[in-house]
Structure formats: structure tokens, C-alpha cells
């Protein structure tokens, strides 16, 4: 591979010496020269440069200003700069390294500098630059893939419109473009089936797992009159039947809450998910649905159980994932009571606009995290069903 090296020094002899040293030790290197900082900028703007050897004391635009200019412009920021100067004061060396120079060596060049040190420094700097370019390129590819994955994930989300028995409101905020939170809501005959789940971890692997959960869930609820505890047990069993790593490597472990709404009766079962809430419109208050249950995918042959709750028209069932209240590196997975408190405070908005309630609740937690110097670090999913 060919490398292009720019040598910037106002002394012709210095430029020739460095060019001579590097051309002997670096195969496939081509060279440009500049006598001041202004010429350096012209060269980098009009052609690819893989390394700059930069003198500090130059007329018109010195090496310090040139270095600062390069590091301020994103398109040139990553080009490695090795400073070569007669200035030996430690403050000068410190300043140039702080400004972003990758290395510094002093003039005049000793025989060891010429034969060993300068060629090695140049080779290392070029290698580092190649690695940087590879990382940037891979990041771009990954971001592109994440965008595509996000588009696909949005297709999997339930549709808010078109249900006869409930009004559905959703808020989904994946942390990395695609996430492990999952929710679904579908009318089958007279019944409304819904589920919210949170796969361990987040990102692409969790996103793939949540896609599989969706397919599994939709298949299982085709069984007539299936109860929520049966949905969870079948999902758990399916994971152990299908995946030989189940229960061992924890790739497919999730909390979940499953519900069925049938003529004013909410039947539900919980698999370790943060307690959902029901807003009782007549009483203008929230009630938590407190049921405990095992995670799905961790232990074989676990049993869940279905409980029932009477709901009335205008009542609302609110479900969410722990990413709403967890933040920072050491996430607090146990702060779900904050959701209950804040929801009560926002109940006035809920009755007027459920969509706005979700947005305001999300924003409230965003501000809580921000005041602690944090932000959302996990996927956030919220689902609200208003009984018609």
C-alpha cells in the first residue's frame, strides 16, 4: 500500500534529510513538501496525506498554529502529526502533544534517529492512522446496519390504530437503535391479548431475541382460550426446547407481563416484570398490579399463575420496562416505585391525553436522570391501553 508523507520545514536541508531517511526505510512512500503552515493546509486540502512531519518554527504560519488548525477540522483531525523541532523545552513538547501531535523528536537528528528512531516513529504513526480509518469505516457500517435494524424493529411494533375494544398508546425508545424491549397488542375475536417483555441486555443480540419473542407470542396466542400463565409457560418451555444454550448462557432471558382483556375482565400473569398499573377512572387513582413471577428462559418447568381484575370503560392499563427508571453505569434496577409516584402526579394529563402522559412521563425521567448527570442507558418501552 502507498503512503503519502508531507514534510513541513522552512529549511531545505532538513526536508531533504528527512525525505532521504524515510524513503530508504518506508517502501511505497511518496512525499510532498511545505515551507510553512499555509502550504501544509493547501496540500492536505487537495490530496490524501497519511503522515505529517511538522517543524514548529516556520514563517507565515508556524507549526503550533498549523497543528491547532488540523486538529480543529474533523476531515483532517485524524492525520498523525510528528513534530520535529530544535526546541527542547519541556513546555513546548508538552504543548504540542496536548494539542494532538502523536510524537515529538528534536533536531538535529542523531545517527540513531536517522537509522532507527524516525523510521519506527513514522511506521507506527502510519499504522495507527490506518487502524483509525478502519475503525471509522466499521462504525459507519455498523450505524447503517443499526438504522436498518431499527426500521425492521419499528415494523414489528403493534399498530396503535384500529382496535375496537381498546385505544392503544405506545412510546418506544431503543438505546442503540434496536433493543431488547418488546410489546405487542392484538385483538383476536372479542379478546385483547397484550404482552410487554424486557430481554436481558440491549443492542443487536437483545433485538434479535425480542423479534423471536414476538413470533413465539403470536403463535402461542392462536390457541383458543389460552390463559396468560399458559402463554408464559409455553414460551419458557419453547425456549428450552429450541435453544440448547437455554438457561445456561443467558442470551434469551427476559421478564414479561402477559394480559388478556375479555369483556371487562383483565386476566394476567407476571414473569418478574416491574408491576404494571391500572388507572381507575371512576376513582381517579392508580392501582399497582402486584404479582411476582420467575424470569422466562432461566429455569425449566417453572409455573406461573393467572389472576383476574375487573376493569371498567375509561380505565387504563399502563405497562413499562425498567429502562424508564434505570440509568447510569451501575443501573438501579429497583426504582420502579418512582414510576408509580410520578404517574400519580401526571394523572391529570392522562385523562386528557394518554399520548401526552407517556411523553411527559418519559421527559420527567429524562430530567431526573439528567440532574444526576446521567441519561437513559437502556431501552424504554411504555404501553397504555384505554378500555373503551
Amino acid at each position, binding site marked *: 500500500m502507498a503512503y503519502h508523507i508531507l514534510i513541513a520545514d522552512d529549511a531545505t536541508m532538513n526536508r531533504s534529510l528527512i525525505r532521504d531517511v524515510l524513503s530508504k526505510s518506508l517502501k511505497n512512500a511518496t512525499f510532498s513538501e511545505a515551507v510553512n503552515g499555509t502550504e501544509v493546509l493547501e496540500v492536505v486540502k487537495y490530496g490524501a496525506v497519511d503522515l505529517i512531519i511538522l517543524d514548529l518554527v516556520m514563517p507565515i504560519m508556524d507549526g503550533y498554529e498549523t497543528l491547532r488548525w488540523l486538529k480543529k477540522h474533523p476531515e483532517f483531525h485524524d492525520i498523525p502529526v510528528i513534530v520535529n523541532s530544535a526546541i527542547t523545552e519541556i513546555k513546548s513538547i508538552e504543548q504540542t502533544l496536548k494539542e494532538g501531535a502523536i510524537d515529538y523528536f528534536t533536531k538535529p537528528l542523531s545517527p540513531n534517529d536517522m537509522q532507527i528512531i524516525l523510521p519506527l516513529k513514522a511506521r507506527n504513526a502510519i499504522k495507527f492512522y490506518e487502524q483509525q480509518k478502519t475503525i471509522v469505516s466499521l462504525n459507519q457500517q455498523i450505524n447503517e446496519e443499526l438504522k436498518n435494524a431499527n426500521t425492521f424493529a419499528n415494523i414489528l411494533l403493534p399498530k396503535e390504530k384500529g382496535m375496537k375494544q381498546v385505544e392503544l398508546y405506545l412510546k418506544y425508545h431503543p438505546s442503540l437503535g434496536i433493543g431488547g424491549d418488546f410489546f405487542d397488542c392484538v385483538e383476536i375475536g372479542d379478546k385483547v391479548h397484550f404482552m410487554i417483555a424486557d430481554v*436481558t441486555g440491549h443492542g443487536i443480540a437483545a433485538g434479535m431475541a425480542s423479534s423471536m419473542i414476538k413470533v413465539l407470542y403470536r403463535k402461542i396466542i392462536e390457541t383458543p382460550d389460552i390463559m396468560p400463565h399458559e402463554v408464559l409457560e409455553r414460551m419458557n418451555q419453547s425456549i428450552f426446547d429450541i435453544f440448547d444454550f437455554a438457561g445456561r448462557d443467558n442470551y434469551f*432471558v427476559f421478564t414479561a407481563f402477559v394480559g388478556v382483556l375479555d369483556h371487562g375482565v383483565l386476566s394476567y400473569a407476571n414473569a418478574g416484570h416491574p408491576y404494571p398499573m391500572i388507572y381507575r377512572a371512576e376513582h381517579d387513582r392508580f392501582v399497582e398490579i402486584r404479582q*411476582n413471577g420467575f424470569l422466562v428462559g*432461566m429455569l425449566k418447568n417453572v409455573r406461573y399463575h393467572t389472576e383476574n381484575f375487573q376493569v371498567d370503560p375509561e380505565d387504563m392499563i399502563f405497562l413499562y420496562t425498567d429502562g424508564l427508571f*434505570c440509568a447510569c453505569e451501575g443501573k438501579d*434496577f429497583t426504582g420502579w416505585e418512582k414510576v408509580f409516584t410520578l404517574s400519580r402526579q401526571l394523572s391529570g394529563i392522562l385523562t386528557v391525553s394518554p399520548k401526552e402522559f407517556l411523553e411527559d412521563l418519559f421527559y420527567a425521567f429524562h430530567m431526573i436522570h439528567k440532574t444526576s448527570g446521567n441519561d437513559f442507558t437502556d431501552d424504554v418501552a411504555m404501553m397504555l391501553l384505554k378500555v373503551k
Partner: protein
Amino acid sequence: MEEQLLGNCMRLIITEGLTANRVSDYTQKTEALFASDSRFDSVVLDLSSTKNIDSVGVTFVIGLYKASEEHNKSFSVSGASVDIMSLFRLMKLDQFFDLNE
């Protein structure tokens, strides 16, 4: 994570968070422990110094419980905060191992 052998009880003390960024390190240490050490017949996970736990941390605790079972050792958790105990009860883990204060 510190290991203390007290009689025939291996006490594992988590000194930092039980969170995703640390769990793989804990997992490696516990796997090595079970592979090499037969001097203990019970495992106590001490969470008295742990304030933070996330979903990966929970799966670590369950994995440790299962590994203990596979090696015929008893398992319990001690010193967990009120919040962490609530979380374990939400997930019904108290049905599998003791949660001691």
C-alpha cells in the same frame, strides 16, 4: 469480588455493583472456583456492599445458584438491601434460595 473460606462455607463478597460491566469478570472467577475447589459445601453470596444491580446481575445470581446446585452445594444470599430483596421476591427467587439479612 472477594472470596473467603470460613470452615466449609465459601463466602463471595461483591464489593462493587452487580451490573453488566462487571458480571463477566465475576462469572470467570466463580467458574474457576467450582472447577478447582472442593473444600466447601456451601456458597453464600454476600451483597452487603452492593447497592446497584441490573438484569445481567440478576442472571449472574441465578447462574451461581444453578452452578451450586450442579456441584451439590447449598446456596444463599446475605446482606442484600431492601430494594434488592424486593427485586428477588418480584422474580420469586426466594423460592429457590434463602435471602438472609
